[in-house]
């Protein structure tokens, strides 16, 4: 079983301060590892550290390479990121934005080739963005914009994908589309996924293992059945959780206030 990402006693530093500490995780090729925690717990900071954008202490290897010493060009061919914040100063079109994902495969002065454009168009088709391919990214809907940034990450053709809250702000139908796509990427293309999530239900569905962070410290790491148990979730989020079961359905955990409202 090939290990694509391994961290032992990892701390992520912002300046002199440790904003994230004591993280241990190992992700196999084709696996999916979730990072879950309340707002401000250091999930996105951990992702920055895992891909070498922030200094770290402890052991860290991405496909056997230390990210900080690998160089940005090499890391961009190993890890693609779907960011949480979709910021851009100038409104590229959807197709232009997706095509930029091919940049790590070309030298700076080298123009994109026909195969790059074909790859971008194929991804645009695959994610249902063809009707808006010629539109500016700031003119499409939030859900479509998330797909654009996912398409750009996929265009990098990397073995590892880091997805930072990919379903945030999306309606249920689009959430299901993205989740199904992530599952297909793992199973059919063998991509390794590290995903930051707030949604406990999605974490249970997608992830083989989960790291729970609270106040920058790893609270637990392991299989979802253990890490996403009601008692640990209560320690993580500070609210009581109740398991709700329907006949023949996978049990669902809900915050107790929501459950009380239902009953």
């Amino acid at each position, binding site marked *: 079983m090939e290990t694509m990402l391994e961290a032992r006693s990892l701390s992520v530093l912002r300046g002199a301060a440790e904003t994230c500490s004591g993280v241990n995780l190992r992700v196999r090729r084709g696996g999916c590892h979730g990072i879950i925690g309340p707002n401000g717990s250091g999930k996105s900071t951990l992702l920055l550290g895992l891909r070498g954008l922030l200094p770290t202490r402890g052991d860290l290897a991405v496909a056997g390479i230390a990210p900080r010493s690998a160089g940005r060009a090499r890391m961009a061919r190993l890890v*693609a990121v779907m960011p949480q914040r979709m910021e*851009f100063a100038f*409104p590229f079109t959807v197709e232009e934005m997706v095509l930029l994902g091919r940049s790590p495969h070309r030298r700076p002065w080298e123009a994109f080739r026909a195969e790059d454009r074909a790859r971008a168009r194929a991804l645009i088709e695959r994610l249902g963005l063809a009707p808006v391919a010629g539109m500016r990214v700031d003119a499409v809907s939030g859900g479509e914009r998330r797909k654009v940034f996912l398409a750009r990450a996929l265009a990098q053709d990397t073995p590892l994908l880091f997805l930072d809250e990919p379903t945030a702000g999306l309606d249920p139908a689009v959430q299901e*589309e993205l989740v199904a796509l992530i599952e297909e990427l793992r199973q059919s293309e063998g991509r390794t996924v590290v995903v930051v999530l707030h949604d406990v239900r999605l974490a249970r569905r997608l992830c083989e293992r989960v790291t729970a962070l609270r106040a920058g410290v790893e609270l637990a790491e392991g299989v979802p059945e253990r890490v996403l148990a009601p008692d640990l979730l209560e320690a993580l989020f500070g609210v009581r959780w109740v398991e709700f079961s329907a006949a023949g359905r996978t049990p669902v955990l809900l915050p107790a206030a929501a459950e009380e409202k239902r009953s």
Partner: protein
Amino acid sequence: MTSYKSSLPEPRSPNAARGPAGAGLDRLCCCYLLALVVVLFGASFLGSYRLTPAAVWDAFWQPDGGRAYADWFDLRFRRLFFAGAVGGILGLCGTVFQALLRNPLAEPYILGISGAASLGSMAVRFLLPAGSALFAEGWLTIGPLAGALAGTALLLAVARWGGLYDPPSLILAGAVLTAIFGALGLLFYTLAPERQVVATLLWLMGNINAEAMVGTPHLRNLLLLLAAGGVGFFAFARHLDLLSLGEEEAADLGVSPRALRVALLIAASLLTGAVVAAAGPIGFAGLVVPHIVRTLHGPGHDRLVPLSILGGAIFLMLCDTAARTCFAPHQLPIGVVTALVGGPFFLFLLGTRRRGALSVA
């Protein structure tokens, strides 16, 4: 491969925002070049006194060249050519600074580089005035260049000291440095002879002056710098695109954003310093031209770089023509014309951005 249908109804309304139509870059460059040639030759026959193409053509064939031809070539054509070279560099620098700072309102002077270059020029004019034992004409070029480099170094030092590499902080640091350099400039005004103050003030308003500036060395050097800068920045056009996405995104797509930003800042600052040395600080050209080109042809820097050079050349030739003709026989400093055009344009941009923000809210 599974296809996923968009969860939104299709097709989209034709009124939805579409990116600019994609004419080929070579076709666009040809159009801009044609416009440049038309402006260059057309504007060369406009001025405070009448020069017709026929008179210039007849004078050209005279054994001694003829007065009409000499006036046309030396006072107008070369001056316009010079203005075009200056405008091309300003357009290029504006494009690069807007990508560096991820802000379409940025221009070459916002980081205090022109203030520093101006201060260098004033220092040379005050400390080594014409007629003094140490004076040499080369100092008038070295002074602004050294000032631009020193201003860049100071900006980078301030940024490094405060960890302020993000664009809003760089802009703020630049504004503060501009104020400081301006205050130091006032010191020169106070101490310098009145004759020098007047000359310096005129220079500070921008100076496309055929007699004083359109010497072969200045124009040749500017064209060499423009060619080198244009080729260099065009080669890294995609890096400019990535840098405009943000620091993390650029890094995730294979760029070292901090190192790239410093390298581009130094290169663009040198170009800015050189153009300030040649023609004084001319504001707003670097703001207006890239913005218009981006609106017409999209934000991709593979188009922005060459078209902003050509557009900047056309813009400044037109401004120079207006400076020569609007109040003929008086000639306005070109910086006055670019400010009269660019200032309202800048306010318009601010207004449209504010309205856009309100409509989103």
